[in-house]
């Protein structure tokens, strides 16, 4: 598609359940990012992939969060044993930038996000 696609748009889960959020980046984009946006806040970096390699997961808040991009295109963010503080909008972004390229000229393009509510 023309833009970054995320699904589902809305997800409601009970505390303790596992959830999986999907991101389909812009075709051909090497780099993929996940952000967490709490209510009233700016997005905060979670993790970064270049192709299938997860080069940075420093922003993942706990070991309950896991992300993968096995074939270098679609990515899934999984949250295990969800807790109420996990409630947020999860944004995915992709970029044609990559290691050795000029990131400034390849800014990040964002999807519409998945709004996760944990009851």
């Amino acid at each position, binding site marked *: 598609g023309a833009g*970054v696609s*995320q699904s589902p*748009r809305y997800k409601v889960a009970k505390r303790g359940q596992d959830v999986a959020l999907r991101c389909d980046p812009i075709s051909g984009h090497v*780099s993929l*990012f996940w952000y967490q946006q709490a209510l*009233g*806040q*700016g*997005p*905060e*970096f979670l993790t*970064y992939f270049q192709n299938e390699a997860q080069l*940075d997961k420093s922003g993942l808040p706990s070991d309950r969060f896991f992300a993968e991009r096995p074939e270098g295109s679609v990515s899934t963010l999984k949250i295990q044993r969800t807790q109420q503080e996990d409630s947020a909008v999860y*944004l995915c*972004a992709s*970029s044609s*930038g990559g290691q050795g390229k000029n*990131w*400034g*000229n390849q*800014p*990040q*393009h*964002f*999807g*519409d*996000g998945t*709004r996760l509510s944990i009851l």
Partner: protein
Amino acid sequence: AQSVTQLDSQVPVFEEAPVELRCNYSSSVSVYLFWYVQYPNQGLQLLLKYLSGSTLVKGINGFEAEFNKSQTSFHLRKPSVHISDTAEYFCAVTLPGAYKYIFGTGTRLKVLA
């Protein structure tokens, strides 16, 4: 480490009036700066970016921003706003060669009829 401060959490303005949304950054080295807009229930859309060169940057939808190194600011302006400009605006900073964006907390622009 870099940081971004958006001083105003909300800015109400009447339609066709000018607006300025403030952004200040903190960094000991050169940075790249971005403004993104987020409409309700949507993702972030890039308005404009500053990498280097001319300090006045023009973006989409009639917005522009001016980079001021001495004041470490990158304020966003529009001479005449429309109802459709009602949205959340985020300033972001990153380092040249870096991929990680640091976002401000956002400014909610509300355009009044």
